[in-house]
């Protein structure tokens, strides 16, 4: 029982990270029709800044805030300089551009900070014992912080004017413009929010994995699996999908095979998509031909 609890908590913590990243991806995708492959690499730049500040004696929490700020700034720079000129609805061009930006950001990080993997500071150390299991406090903090961030995002979109405007732009940019909503301003806010969530996810993930230029690539791909599982256009789907991927991944590693954990998780995702192509929470779209 204690081992099951340990594996479950660890899976939920990993899933929370995937869920946060997935949420960021969905927010950006819904607002600007961009599948942002550069999200993880841009967040990695922020994490390196956080480590540099930590090495200079700055408190970890301020380092994390700096990571979020740098990632948001880098993301906005990318959007304004290389994504926005493409225009609305250029899904595949934008996809390729973000892939290119991702490689550039990785090389930049490697050039500035080196390729040697580095330790990333935990917010908290130690364990708490519960039902015989020694649960890492960092995992519990990860779950708590991610839950708080997701709740705030939910509140923003459900209860605020800004959130309503962002949803309106996501539904129909042209109509939103007619009623006086600034589509570009809202797109910038969406990018900032999405990248901020990615940086936060990175800060919660890196204490376990260490920091390298490609450290966030694996969680990004699991986040993608999560949003396809949950539904590409659904924010709830991104969170639930991410959590499902994290938990299934760990349960599969423990009870099936540590080697076939990915195979199991992605087989499950494929199976769900075969039955429900729009994902668990996505809406089915129809196009006239």
């Amino acid at each position, binding site marked *: 029982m204690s*081992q099951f609890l340990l594996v479950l908590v660890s*899976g939920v913590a990993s899933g929370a990270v995937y869920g946060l990243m997935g949420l960021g991806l969905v927010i950006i995708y819904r607002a600007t029709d961009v599948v942002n492959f550069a999200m993880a690499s841009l967040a990695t730049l922020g994490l390196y800044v956080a480590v540099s500040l930590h090495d200079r004696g700055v408190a970890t929490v301020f380092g994390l805030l700096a990571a979020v700020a740098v990632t948001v700034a880098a993301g906005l720079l990318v959007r304004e300089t290389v994504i926005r000129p493409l225009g609305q609805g250029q899904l595949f061009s934008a996809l390729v551009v973000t892939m290119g930006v991702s490689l550039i950001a990785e*090389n930049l990080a490697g*050039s500035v900070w080196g*390729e040697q*993997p580095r330790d990333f500071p935990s917010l908290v150390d130690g364990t708490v014992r519960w039902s015989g299991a020694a649960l890492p406090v960092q995992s519990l903090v990860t779950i708590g912080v991610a839950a708080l961030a997701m709740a705030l995002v939910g509140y923003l979109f459900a209860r605020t004017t800004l959130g309503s405007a962002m949803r309106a732009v996501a539904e129909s940019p042209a109509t939103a413009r007619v009623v006086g909503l600034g589509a570009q301003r809202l797109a910038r806010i969406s990018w900032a929010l999405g990248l901020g969530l990615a940086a936060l996810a990175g800060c919660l*993930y890196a204490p376990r994995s260490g920091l390298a230029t490609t450290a966030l690539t*694996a969680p990004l791909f699991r986040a993608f699996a999560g949003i396809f599982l949950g539904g590409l256009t659904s924010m709830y789907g991104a969170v639930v999908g991410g959590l499902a991927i994290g938990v299934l991944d760990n*349960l599969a590693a423990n009870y099936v095979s540590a080697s076939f954990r990915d195979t199991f998780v992605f087989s499950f995702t494929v199976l769900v998509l075969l039955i429900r192509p729009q994902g668990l929470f996505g809406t089915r779209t129809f196009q006239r031909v």
Partner: protein
Amino acid sequence: MFRTISRFRRVAGTTAVLAALALTASACAGQDSASASSSSAEIHIGAWLPLTGSTATYGVAEKVGADAYFKMLNAQGGINGRKVEWTVKDNAADPQQTVQIARELVGQDKVVAIVNANGTAQAEAAFPFVLNQSKVPVLNEVGGTENWYKPPRAGLFGTQTLYEDQAAAVAAWAVQDGAKKILVVHSDPAAFVNVAEQVAPVAKKADPSVEVDRLPVKYQTTDYTPVISKVKAAKPQAVILILTSPEAAAFLKEAKLQGLSLPTYAYAPVAAESTIALAKDAAEGLKAVQLVKAPSDDDPAVKEFRTAMAKYEPGQTAGFLALWGWSNAKVFAEIAKTVKGPVTAQSLTAAYQKASKVDTGVSPVMSFSASSHLGTRSVQKVVVKNGVWTSVGDFYTPPARG
């Protein structure tokens, strides 16, 4: 219609002529490089290294280590009065790029040997042009597999104890320490599986009552919680890690969190500074094997390395990987010193075939022959003590495998 056919014929004819010219030029290039020799003032050698990309950690460190050695050597007068010019090109760990670099090094730069390059797949991509066509030797490459040396290939000489022999060494070490039940935790790609499979035969040869199990783990796993649960359930007396350095660090951190305390052994890729940097105090007591002595040793040869690094590569880490580069450069220099007359691809190959008891002081004593192109099977045992890799005893040759 007729105009189209006529144009097609013209294009086809031109293409055929160009292809013939290219083949002739290529053949000439091969002949040139085979007989190329360094000028009387210098010995020109080259290497492909991953200076960017995912394995740049290895390439950059290997480069600065070898650079420090060659700079020191040149300041002392070089090899028999000839300076060494070592041209390094970044292949970003890409096999296709390596082939292009090999053509530049051999065809344009006229190097007489490839020395201290890096990468198994990368080198294999370049072998047809470098070894077979150009007859330029590939010396002291970091990487490689058993079939590179069995049977020996003309012009290919290695200084790195095979991963399989490293696994044999840690297996024997664990049995010597009294372990009766060993669990090998390894990544799942074939390269890791092959190494992990070497543990059981050697352990059973040392003590037939020893039980050995394997636990394959998905490559690049970061969450080791379920893996540690499985290790606990298996109740081994020792664990052998055939993982990358970040994976091993993740294993050690999670083991410490879950209160798992077992004698843990690893092969050379884990015996890296990055393992300690990532795992911190969870790495304390980790035992591993290495290709060279620990860079922190008081040994005079290691001190010389640290001094040269501080002088010629200030700001760079004088770690294991840099010491690999240093050691490979020194092996080359020691053997090249025995060449009488012009230093050519052929004379270097002949010198390597006759080289015996090449002692760098930092790596095992190397011996080569016409039938044995791998200089050593020995390793250095190292342990993490007070957060630093520390050598244990002298170089150790593992029992024969199979």
